[in-house]
């Protein structure tokens, strides 16, 4: 009987570490495949190189890093105010019934596949930009708008959670001292929840940087540092996604190297988000 119990415990343990094994396996493969190119080109030259021309053995991913960052920052600029605003609405202003309707709606937003976002961007946003600005439509702006909507659920959920967990006493104290509701929110509650809100923003950033399909469909994919919001752009994920099928040999390794950079970015963001305590007063 005891032996049986131990066996079972072992099996369960193995299941539990499969996630870790998976991460190790994935990291190993990616680093193994990508490292040769990084060593050949030099990590600094790889990251800061402005030209990406694999057929000529030139591997500089700076345009893609810039692209990813620009689109993400654009998404944050649009998404964070709306997200935090919505979170404040749900946590402080709305009647419970409205929150009950809103919450599933936001979960639905989170569950919509990225191709559908890409489709919407392709059929509505890109032509709109094309008409208004008289250019080709595929641009940083298009990417930012769509990504902003995609990261809204993340920002809203974590921010709302953070705001809700601010102890009631803070708010009551503020109100009893004569502040208005909004003043309490602005000067007391939100600052108290600031670490959770920061975590929300960082998680949103991670999501935006990791998005592939929607961006490929609407950003234009030119491997150039974007000159303006209206320029076409290629992100790190887009770089991999577009060329992966046919890249072989060193080119494929360069894509894995791009993957390493992406991986590192996302890992750093995740660690940062996890280090920040999410509840007030921690």
């Amino acid at each position: 009987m005891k032996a049986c119990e131990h066996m079972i415990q072992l099996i369960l343990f193995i299941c539990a570490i499969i996630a870790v094994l998976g991460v190790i396996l994935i990291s190993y493969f990616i680093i193994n495949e990508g490292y040769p190119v990084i060593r050949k080109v030099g990590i600094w030259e790889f990251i800061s190189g402005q030209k990406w021309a694999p057929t000529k053995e030139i591997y500089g991913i700076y345009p893609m890093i810039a692209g990813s960052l620009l689109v993400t920052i654009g998404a944050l600029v649009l998404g964070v105010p709306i997200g935090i605003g919505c979170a404040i609405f749900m946590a402080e202003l709305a009647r419970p019934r409205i929150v009950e309707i809103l919450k599933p709606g936001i979960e639905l937003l989170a569950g919509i596949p990225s191709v559908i976002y890409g489709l919407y961007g392709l059929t509505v946003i890109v032509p709109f930009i094309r008409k208004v600005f008289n250019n080709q439509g595929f641009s940083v702006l298009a990417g930012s708008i769509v990504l902003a909507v995609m990261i809204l659920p993340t920002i809203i959920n974590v921010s709302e959670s953070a705001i809700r967990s601010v102890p009631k006493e803070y708010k009551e104290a503020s109100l009893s001292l004569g502040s208005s509701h909004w003043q309490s929110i602005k000067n007391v509650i939100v600052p108290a929840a600031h670490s959770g809100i920061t975590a929300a923003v960082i998680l949103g950033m991670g999501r935006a940087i990791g998005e592939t399909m929607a961006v490929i469909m609407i950003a234009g994919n030119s491997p150039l540092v974007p000159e303006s919001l209206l320029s076409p752009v290629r992100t790190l994920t887009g770089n991999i996604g577009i060329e992966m099928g046919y890249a072989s040999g060193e080119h494929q390794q360069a894509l894995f190297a791009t993957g390493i950079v992406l991986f590192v970015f996302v890992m750093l963001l995740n660690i940062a988000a996890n280090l920040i305590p999410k509840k007030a007063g921690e």
Partner: protein
Amino acid sequence: MRIRKILAFICAAVLLIGAFTGCAPAETKVPAGNKTEEDGVSGSITMNGSTSVQPLAEELAKVFKDKNPNTTIDIQGGGSGVGIKSAADGVVDIGMSSRDLKPEEKSLKEFKIAVDGIAVIVNPNNKVEDLSTEQIFKIYTGEITDWKEVGGDSGEITVVTREEGSGTRGAFIELTKIESKSEGDRTVASAITQGSTGAVIATIAGDPNAIGYASFGSAKESTGIKMISIDGKACTEENIYSGEYKISRPFLMLTKAEPTGLAKAFLDFILGEEGQTVISGHNYLKAVK
């Protein structure tokens, strides 16, 4: 109780799907292309590669399957580069390419099944009807940036190109001299990159200032875009055959080793009378006239 019902439903669904699709693990693991059948007309193979060749391959597979119902031919896209790489990696049975193989790729077995022109396409609302090779070169390398420089209405030219692994792109930049020996591909970096024949056509159809290039066979059947003539020569079958329309390239089917089984049967079919008739019926040119 409701939970048990849901679980039961899921189990039933699994069994149903399994029965439906004849879930047969491990049996068909060996790539069917290497199985030796008596008459090579059963089994399954996978193909991928050039999106220019893909529509044609699907047609050929359809006709082939009508005659050999026990076969499965799965076809995917991805671009010539994908086809070449997948064939070399042994990940598919046949790879499709719409450009000649480079010296380092020559270890693959190649079978030329057709010849195809590359049409230069613009939006139907574009006034321009003809461009010289020189003008195309300048547009694609970024020297000419406005349609009025080549006889059209004023408007910034949106240059559309294919991804680097595309056979169509490879052939195009070679034949228009955009690719030079010393500098390689000089396509302007701000060009919009699209990943397939269809995607290029869709982009041109949606942007009045766009210019792009795509397989003649596909372009001819598409509405929403207009083919322009080059150096006065229209993109037509005769002109491609005669060489007057200069931008054309071969459709190749590639295998890692000498094809056997179903792969061999399919290739024989394509290269034979019947296959070639299908090919010419779809605006592609027969491999051997």
